[in-house]
């Protein structure tokens, strides 16, 4: 058990979160009547805050623990998980993120109500909040594992401490708080990753990674050292993960809440240039760490889950271990914060305010959002240990969002038909359930086809056919071309 390490990491997180919360709370008194101050930072966040928040929101437990483990089996090709998220961020910055900011909405379901009516808003609210909550439970599991590795505690206690830190990350000032903490954590993250890679190389023979290359070459596994791996990995894993992430993440509340908070559309466009590399290159460091740990006999015998974290604690000087683990924890905490803020905002705006209290003030709605964050986080902590492994669950959860992406693209740019929307989302969601929980894939002899492919295929086919047949209106931006061209 490494108590000093744990105390140092917790002190860093508490000081950073506390300092920013106090600063923002003082400032907040002047801005408390701003439009959606808590949920969207008053729609006034600058590039310096949007960049790290975009990058860190889709960089969580799977990027760290998942890539450590995946690189053990498939080598550098595991990088495609990180690259898929970077590609999704690019899609957000050139399309869905701009659309969400332009329409001046607070949630994705609210955006869909403008295209398809109330029924679709409620259906998507429930499903999207559920899918993002699912990711929150997995992030909580990740927090539990990271803290348990450091301390020797059980995962449940680690998840509880992580959950408390995660709630503190967001509860004081909402989106603004998450954004500013992310700015500091992103800087810390890259400094510590670069230093850690340097120190690990110094600890290897020849002071570089040549011994790691030799290890894999001697086993005739040179393909482990390139992100292009083997043709089979490219076709099954790489393409599968790119499809699952690129066709789901850009439509999720999780990431669009960030662009809705931006000062302007130009802020979102500018953020592209830094957010994409900041997010995408993170995986390079975790893969190098994972591959190195496997090549060293003393860590190899610990297996895929423990080798890399143990190597970091043993090979790095204590001050750098504290920095690196703090930054890993921060990456997971930032995703925890956004995955709790996202469904909480959907609950307060699309369910509570829309259905039960349409005249609720901004301050009252923010209170409901805060309450929902605490309830969601508490449930996530309670169920975190009885969940499937992080990487097995994420593609299934993301597949729920693929039909929503279709509704957004079709309704804004092509044709908005209420009946088609209902049929399309129902078909997409049904096939996701059947693919996982019935022998359908087996009957079709397609067990190796991931959920994302099946959901995407059904969504596109049903979406196109029903849009052509069912009555509907022109796409929102085709009908409102002046709005489409406005605001930079």
């Amino acid at each position: 058990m490494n108590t000093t390490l744990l105390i140092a990491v917790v002190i860093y997180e508490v000081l950073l979160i506390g300092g920013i919360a106090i600063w923002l709370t003082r400032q907040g008194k002047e801005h408390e009547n701003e439009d959606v101050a808590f949920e969207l930072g008053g729609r006034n966040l600058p590039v310096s805050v949007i960049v790290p928040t975009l990058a860190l929101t889709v960089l969580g437990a799977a990027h760290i623990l998942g890539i450590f483990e995946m690189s053990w089996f498939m080598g550098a090709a595991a990088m495609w998980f990180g690259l898929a998220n970077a590609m999704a961020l690019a899609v957000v910055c050139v399309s869905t993120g701009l659309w969400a900011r332009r329409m001046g909405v607070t949630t994705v379901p609210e955006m869909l109500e403008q295209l398809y009516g109330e029924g679709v808003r409620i259906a998507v609210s429930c499903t999207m909040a559920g899918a993002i909550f699912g990711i929150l439970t997995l992030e909580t599991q990740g927090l539990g594992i990271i803290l348990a590795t450091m301390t020797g505690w059980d995962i449940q206690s680690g998840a509880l401490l992580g959950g408390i830190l995660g709630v503190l990350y967001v509860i004081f000032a909402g989106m603004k708080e998450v954004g500013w903490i992310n700015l500091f954590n992103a800087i810390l993250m890259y400094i510590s990753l670069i230093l850690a890679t340097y120190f690990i190389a110094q600890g290897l023979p020849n002071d570089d990674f040549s011994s790691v290359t030799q290890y894999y070459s001697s086993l005739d596994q040179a393909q482990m050292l390139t992100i292009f791996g083997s043709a089979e990995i490219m076709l099954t894993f790489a393409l599968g993960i790119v499809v699952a992430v690129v066709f789901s993440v850009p439509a999720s509340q999780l990431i669009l809440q960030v662009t809705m908070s931006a000062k302007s559309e130009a802020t979102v466009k500018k953020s592209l240039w830094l957010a994409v590399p900041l997010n995408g290159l993170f995986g390079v460091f975790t893969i190098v760490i994972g591959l190195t740990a496997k090549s060293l006999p003393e860590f190899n015998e610990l297996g895929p889950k423990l080798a890399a974290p143990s190597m970091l604690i043993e090979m790095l000087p204590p001050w750098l271990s504290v920095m690196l683990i703090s930054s890993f924890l921060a990456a997971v905490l930032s995703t925890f914060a956004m995955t709790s803020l996202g469904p909480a905002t959907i609950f307060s705006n699309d369910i509570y305010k829309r259905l039960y209290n349409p005249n609720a003030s901004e301050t009252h709605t923010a209170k409901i959002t805060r309450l929902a964050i605490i309830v969601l986080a508490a449930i996530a902590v309670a169920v975190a240990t009885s969940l499937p492994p992080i990487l097995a669950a994420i593609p299934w959860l993301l597949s729920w969002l693929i039909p929503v992406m279709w509704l957004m693209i079709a309704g804004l740019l092509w044709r908005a038909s209420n009946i088609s929307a209902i049929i399309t989302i129902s078909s997409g969601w049904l096939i996701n359930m059947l693919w996982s929980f019935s022998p359908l894939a087996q009957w079709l002899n397609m067990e190796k086809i991931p959920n994302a492919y099946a959901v995407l295929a059904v969504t596109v086919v049903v979406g196109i056919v029903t849009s052509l047949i069912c009555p509907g209106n022109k796409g929102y931006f085709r009908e409102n071309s002046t709005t489409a061209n406005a605001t930079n």
Partner: protein
Amino acid sequence: MFWTIFGEASLIIGITLVISFLALQLQNKKDSK
């Protein structure tokens, strides 16, 4: 090893950014019409 993986990842990210840049240019052109 580090630089190979870094270079390959940078290549993919670079291609993503170039495509995004072209998409933004196309949008700007369309909007200015």
